[in-house]
């Protein structure tokens, strides 16, 4: 499209009126047909014919290099569970419109949803600089940084989000989790208590609060909040992790093992649980299980480290919380 526009401008400049006219007409037709195709795709979607809709959108994207088509296509692919396809569509959109906030935002969110936090971090960092007053970018950046293990910068991003839009339960929850991961339990308890006030029924918030309380040695309070969560969500990863940690603190290793095993079943990437599980099994005298969980812990840790290294190489100026770690 840009090339066509440039040719048109050149023709007009040169005074080649006939050719310019012809080109203008062709462009108009193209825009009309692109609109038609997009409209048809929308109709197909409304009628539930998603395959046909995707075909039309793919066709529009290819023929007209339409960013709009690619954005819509990625949304449909995402809804269909095709995260890889959705990301690829957004990558194409990014190539066509590298500075489009809409495209970048969609790409970052899709990357996060697709479990690819590194490109999300890079994109959200750019978005945050483009639009520093948009709370959502800071929040998502914080979440993405947490996903790659960059806890310190995550806290910074989430604090910025909290400043832009105070008392948002989701932000407070993410900030509390980030503080917990830095063992800043007093800070975590403070923000998570506020989050609980704002969103009483949220199991994740209660579990995170319990984690902070356990870190502060407030085992009774932690236990109470964990039980509240587990009553409604028996497999909740964080709640089971905290239940395990509380049991470890009380030297109740069999209970700790059971809770921690539930935690890793729900969230196999929870390396803290793998590590504590290896300790619990060791203290129960089950050396085989202790070794197994230790190995799983090491593998998980290596995976996280790889992600951090990837981020380090990708982000550069943003850095990570510490190059020594």
């Amino acid at each position, binding site marked *: 499209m840009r090339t066509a526009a440039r040719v048109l401008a050149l023709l007009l400049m040169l005074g080649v009126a006939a050719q310019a006219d012809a080109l203008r007409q062709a462009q108009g037709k193209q825009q009309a047909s692109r609109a038609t195709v997009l409209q048809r795709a929308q109709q197909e979607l409304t009628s539930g014919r998603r395959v046909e809709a995707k075909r039309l959108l793919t066709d529009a994207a290819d023929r007209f290099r339409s960013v709009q088509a690619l954005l819509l296509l990625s949304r449909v692919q995402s809804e269909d569970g095709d995260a890889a396809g959705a990301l690829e569509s957004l990558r194409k959109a990014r190539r066509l419109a590298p500075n489009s906030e809409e495209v970048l935002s969609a790409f970052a969110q899709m990357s996060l949803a697709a479990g690819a936090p590194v490109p999300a971090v890079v994109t959200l960092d750019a978005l945050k600089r483009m639009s520093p007053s948009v709370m959502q970018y800071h929040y998502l950046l914080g979440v993405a940084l947490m996903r790659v293990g960059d806890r310190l910068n995550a806290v910074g991003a989430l604090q910025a989000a909290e400043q832009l839009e105070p008392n948002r339960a989701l932000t407070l929850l993410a900030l509390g989790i980030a503080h917990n991961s830095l*063992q800043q339990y007093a800070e975590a308890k403070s923000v998570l208590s506020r989050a609980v006030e704002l969103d009483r029924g949220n199991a994740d918030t209660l579990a995170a609060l319990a984690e902070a309380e356990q870190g502060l040695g407030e085992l009774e309070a932690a236990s109470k909040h964990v039980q509240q969560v587990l009553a409604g969500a028996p497999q909740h990863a964080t709640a089971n992790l905290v239940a395990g940690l509380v049991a470890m603190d009380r030297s109740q290793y069999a209970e700790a093992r059971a809770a921690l095993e539930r935690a890793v079943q729900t969230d196999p990437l929870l390396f803290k649980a793998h590590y504590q599980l290896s300790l619990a099994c*060791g203290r129960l005298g089950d050396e085989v299980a202790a070794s197994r969980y230790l190995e799983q812990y090491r593998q998980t840790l290596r995976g996280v480290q790889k992600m951090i290294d990837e981020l380090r190489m990708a982000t550069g100026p943003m850095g990570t919380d510490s190059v020594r770690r």
Partner: protein
Amino acid sequence: MTRGIAALLAFALAQGTASGNGGFRDVTRDAGVTFVHHAAPEKKFIVESMSGGVALFDYDNDGRLDIYFVDSLTVDTAGDPKQARSALYRNLGGFKFVDVTDKAGVGHPGWGMGVCTADVDADGWEDLYVTGLGGNALYRNNHDGTFSNVTERAGVTGGGWSAGCGFADYDRDGDLDLFVSRYVKVDLKQLPQFGRDKTCQYRGVPVQCGPRGLEGESDFLFRNEGNMRFTAVAAQAGVADPSGSFGLGVGWFDYNEDGWPDLFVANDSGANFLYLNQKNGTFKDVAFPMGVAVSQDGAEQGSMGVAVADFDNSGHFGILATNFSEEYNSLHRNEGQHFTDVSFKAKIGAISLPFVGWGTAFFDYDNDGFLDLIAVNGHVYPQLDKVKLGASAGYRQRKLLHHNRGDGTFEEVAAKFGDTMIEERVSRGLAIGDLDDDGRLDIVTNDLDGAPQIIRNEIADAGNWLLVRLKGRGVNTGAIGAVVTARAGSLVQKRLVQSGSSYISQEDKRLHFGLGKAEQVDSLEVLWPDGTTTAMKNVKVNQRIEIPQPQ
């Protein structure tokens, strides 16, 4: 109004003078100590950030603790070893010291790192071992105020970049063996370029590279064959660390109380080691199952210094490891069968998060019968001051002084002792000892940038005390590895004679007991390294005693 201001001023002054109890005073200049540690201003290479240790030991057997500071070169001065001059200060008494380095012959030209001491040749005089880059040195005490470099003959040169060291009789043959930790592989001709890529940046600012991304070094264990000769046995003993972790602080102690010395090694940016002595000349790393390898959430930490002590008067020796910033200092309570990370419960975890910790020691500064804790700090990146700090303290950092409340928790009280304790510095080595034999423990630090600190303990209302010097029979004359248990009323305290501890430093080997208001030590029991015991009853307080091992 004026009276109000006066009252406020009076309050502020009272706060500034350690609540009127004397406190700690920096006496470095008055003491006549002029040593300055050399370091490149920008620390463009990791090798310029890690030195140096400090040792407190009585080299001339006059009963007073002398001080040895380790110096280092910089990349720019690496070609001229004499640019670094480590220094030995003789204690003249009354907190006066004189530089005797040249006469003693221990200026140690070259790239120094750490230090540990022991009477290696069993002649009753302390010898000196200095680690560094490009070879270590064993200085044999000649009994006349001089030392001889016997490194090559002894076979303990090591090589590479050595850091921590400590002597112990790991094979229980009576003589002292030597463990040396090593850090990363360094070729001064091919150093990783400052800020060369994204792995050498910190929050977007170019900094020195490493240790991550650099190749780690293996460690050494030298078995004493007698007659001042050693054999390298790390590989066969299972402590060589072939994977090359970044080894720093070293602590020998018998964690499982089976009579055989075990070994804790603090590794930077990786899991720590706890080597269980298998009583057959070999060790097994049990740091993970024992719960001291990583943080309580399973994260590898950048561990630097080590302190080992019975900090909760439980009868078992626990471990404190100082760590990099955003990683808490780890306090591990010894439960007998394993260790529990009690850093946050004990209230030393959260407050340590902003600091990069190095030298550390448990010491009862107020003689109340409970071991307090000190950690000295300072970052590795001077460039840090140019960027937003976030949760970190800056390049220069204050000390952490944790007062043991006797209930399993500590209170950080450095600010109560005024400028001496909260002045921001770039500290590395730390050693604790009673420099004036007044029963109050003093503090000596070696800073990376500039002058060291000699801090005199002048706490006026400190409790009663006892200072015990052990004299072992046979070859281990310093009784390294011996444990003394003191009972005074309801207080039961245990102390350990150690060679090498803190961050690559050497503490006073005499054992100090704070006794509060106790009028006497009801019983004193020595468990000698060979398993024999000596018991004493009703020992008077506020004195220094020497206990010889019965022949």
